[in-house]
């Protein structure tokens, strides 16, 4: 009978010791392996190689020879940062304990098209700050400035603004220099503008290492919800190159409504929702793993063009005028 007891003991011990056989060992934490992990992860999961015409294999041939196991963390980071910069994607970041890489090409080299001090001194006489929304009335037009989607928008704030702007000619929503944040705030805002259920965009997600491993397309809709009061006026949305990520999605949502006009510069883009992955050394990399299309098939990764393209002119600026805002006011006149 001891045999059975022994068998039980052996089975139990076997399961404990077998565990190591089921799990692969942690990968080596050295520069070469960290680089390989980063390159392979992007190779399997990043979505915009084709769209941006990037040959990731040739990039490997350029950067892999620059990696040696004797190099410092700083030198490794610099090589990785340079390589990731070639993706031209603001949603690609590498986070080490000492630095964060980022891509700024979506706004650098483009007109700034925003000056809040100019607005304060020449347009916003005695503005209110309702939650995270700066608001005022300019020439019988409601003006709302939202500077970051990281700042929460509460239903009460929107109730207040709808009531405050009731009866006005139109509403200007200024999201210039808004570099994104939590898209839940975008949905909450747009629900107050939606006149009926509308298809706002379509997204597909990368779900495997193969080039064509994507989920089926997921259509997103938005509609007015609940008994909350809504904005019924004409709306102008002001954008510039620093309108990025969640602001890009916000623009995509709003532009499907017939009472909305987008004025200013093209948005900065950021149309792939990012996810993160770790390297063996603990550095984290986030990157785009979804592609979002407007209902007409336009991919929003590189930004959404405005309906009316306007830049702030230097001359206007000198006399305290915001050319883009002026164009919006005339549009609502």
């Amino acid at each position, binding site marked *: *009978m001891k045999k*059975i007891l022994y068998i*039980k003991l052996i*089975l*139990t011990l076997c*399961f*404990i010791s077998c*565990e190591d056989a*089921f*799990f*692969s060992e*942690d*990968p080596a*934490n050295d520069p070469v392996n960290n680089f390989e*992990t980063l390159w392979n992860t992007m190779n399997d999961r990043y979505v915009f190689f084709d769209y941006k015409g990037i040959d990731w294999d040739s990039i490997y041939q350029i950067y892999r020879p620059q990696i040696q196991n004797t190099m410092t963390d700083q030198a490794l980071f610099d090589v990785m940062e340079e390589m990731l910069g070639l993706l031209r994607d603001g949603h690609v*970041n590498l*986070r*080490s*304990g*000492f630095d964060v890489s980022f891509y700024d090409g979506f706004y650098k080299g483009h007109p700034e098209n925003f000056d809040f001090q100019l607005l304060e001194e020449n347009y916003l006489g005695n503005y209110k700050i309702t939650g995270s929304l700066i608001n005022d009335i300019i020439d019988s037009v409601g003006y709302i400035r939202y500077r970051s989607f990281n700042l929460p928008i509460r239903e009460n704030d929107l109730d207040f603004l709808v009531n405050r702007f009731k009866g006005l000619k139109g509403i200007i929503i200024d999201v210039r220099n808004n570099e994104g944040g*939590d*898209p*839940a705030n975008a*949905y909450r805002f747009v*629900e107050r503008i939606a006149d009926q259920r509308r298809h706002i965009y379509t997204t597909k*997600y*990368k*779900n*495997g*290492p193969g080039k064509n*491993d994507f*989920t089926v397309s*997921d259509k*997103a*809709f*938005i509609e007015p*919800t609940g008994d909350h009061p809504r904005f019924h006026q004409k709306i102008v949305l002001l954008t510039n190159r620093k309108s990025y990520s969640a602001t890009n999605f916000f623009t995509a949502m709003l532009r499907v409504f017939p009472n909305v006009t987008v004025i200013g510069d093209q948005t900065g883009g950021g149309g792939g*929702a*990012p*996810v*993160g*992955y*770790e*390297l*063996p*050394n*603990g*550095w*984290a990399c*986030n990157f785009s*793993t*979804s592609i979002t299309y407007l209902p007409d098939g336009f991919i929003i990764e590189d930004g959404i063009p405005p309906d009316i393209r306007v830049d702030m002119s230097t001359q206007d600026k000198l006399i305290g005028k915001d050319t883009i805002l002026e164009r919006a006011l005339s549009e609502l006149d």
Partner: protein
Amino acid sequence: MNRIGMLKKSTGTLLLLLLLWSGGLAQSEQEVSVGKGNPVLNRYLTSSLGSRSVRLKDDHMSPMNYFGGMITPGFGIIKERARSISRFDLLFNIGSIRSRNATELRPMRGDYFRLDIQYAYLRYIKEIGEGKYRWFVGGKFRSHANVRLNEQLDTGFITFIFTNGLSFSTALQRDFQLFNRKFIAFYQVDIGVLSHVVRPNYLNIFNYLDPENDWLEERLRDSDWLTIGKFNSIKSQLEIAYPIKAGNMIKFSYGWDFYSLNNKLKAKGASHEFLFTFMFNF
């Protein structure tokens, strides 16, 4: 209703249904068995407290193995009949997991939440080993969920796996004497045969925020029925029970479990569980 509210409601409803289902099974079994020579011998309400050490490797999150230890409270019902044993267990864990490469600057850690709900029905087969061992064969339904929140992964910080599976189970039971006291040993192995595995094909908070998302519908779309090879699971448990007064018992148990998901979103998990259980006879 907001997303979190919906999630809470859906999860609550699911748990309630599982509990009712498990209770229903136990009840129907009792109704059928009475009068067929399988009377109830003992019924126990169990309350457990112990610890669990976890090892996880989630290829969608990190190439590293993650380890953690946590407190494990649990509750259950055991019904012993002349020819069968049925057991319902609910175990819950909250803790944190870390990689061995974690540093102060790069924490490589995650919050870990785990829930196991399991119902096993074991039928007595025969005595073996000159009558010292009672051999049981049966099946087990197990619902397992583990969710990790890894802040360092930015908007992709949520990773989870949720499985509902049927296992083949076999067990041996024997009484033995130690220091002139009677103990009962019980050893059970469960091997997963068919599982319904829910794991999102895309792990990102954006996906959960879309106001038009039907969270449950999407998770079901992400799910698969998987058998051995694609989803392997095994649980081995050794228990030593010691009778105390009024038919109650105290029990020490050690369990090891392992799962391995081998589709596009690979994940592996194993845990060692040590539990002290009070078994209240009612």
